[in-house]
């Protein structure tokens, strides 16, 4: 398998896996579990892991990514600005939800929606970065072949 084919396969796998992370409702719940609470906690964990991965990757590969994916730095800056507050808000409302009695549970949807929107944005930028990386490698391989493998 060529480096390009390997990259394409890897990138496709990666994008599918990351997009799956937005569907944090696939595992069957144990009996007696509150699905609203479990899904909210899943979303918090998934969003935090995805955001943390994204800001670390962007910082570690800033120069390369600025070249490959214009706009990704601004997107990462937005995550750095909004992400912690969104996670903390969701965490607080989850704590309130757990402490409240049945029938007096607060609505989690607003805090969840903010975190989910950031998560979707991050997933979109990761997919763009993977796609741009594959295209760049293909360009380089084509140029290399035109030059006769010199």
């Amino acid at each position, binding site marked *: 398998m060529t480096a390009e084919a390997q990259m394409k396969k890897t990138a496709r796998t990666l994008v599918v896996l990351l997009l799956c992370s937005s569907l*944090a409702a696939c595992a069957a719940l144990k009996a007696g579990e509150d699905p609203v609470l*479990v899904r909210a*906690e899943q979303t918090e964990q998934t969003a935090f*892991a995805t955001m943390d*991965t994204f800001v*670390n990757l962007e910082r570690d590969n800033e120069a390369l990514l600025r070249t490959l994916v214009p706009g990704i730095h601004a997107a990462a800056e937005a995550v750095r600005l909004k992400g*912690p507050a969104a*996670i903390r808000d969701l965490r607080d409302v989850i704590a309130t939800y757990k402490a409240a009695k049945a029938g007096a549970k607060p609505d989690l949807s607003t805090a969840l929606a903010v975190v989910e929107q950031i998560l979707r944005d991050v997933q979109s930028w990761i997919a763009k970065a993977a796609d741009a990386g594959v295209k760049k490698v293909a360009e380089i391989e084509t140029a290399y072949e035109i030059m006769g493998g010199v």
Partner: protein
Amino acid sequence: MQIVLGVLALIEQLIAAYPRIKAAFVQDSALTDQQRADLTAAEERAFVTPAWRTDAQRAADPAPPAP
């Protein structure tokens, strides 16, 4: 060649991060108090690392002490 290596390293890092995301993905019950405390601590530790610092924070304070 440098770009190819950079892209490969980038994708390698992304794949390495996947187990963290998968762990949340397959959660089937509410967090225990200890798991909640661990998650909160992990989040707060991460938010003060260099990767989470904005350009404005870096410009204002280029070399903060390690958390």
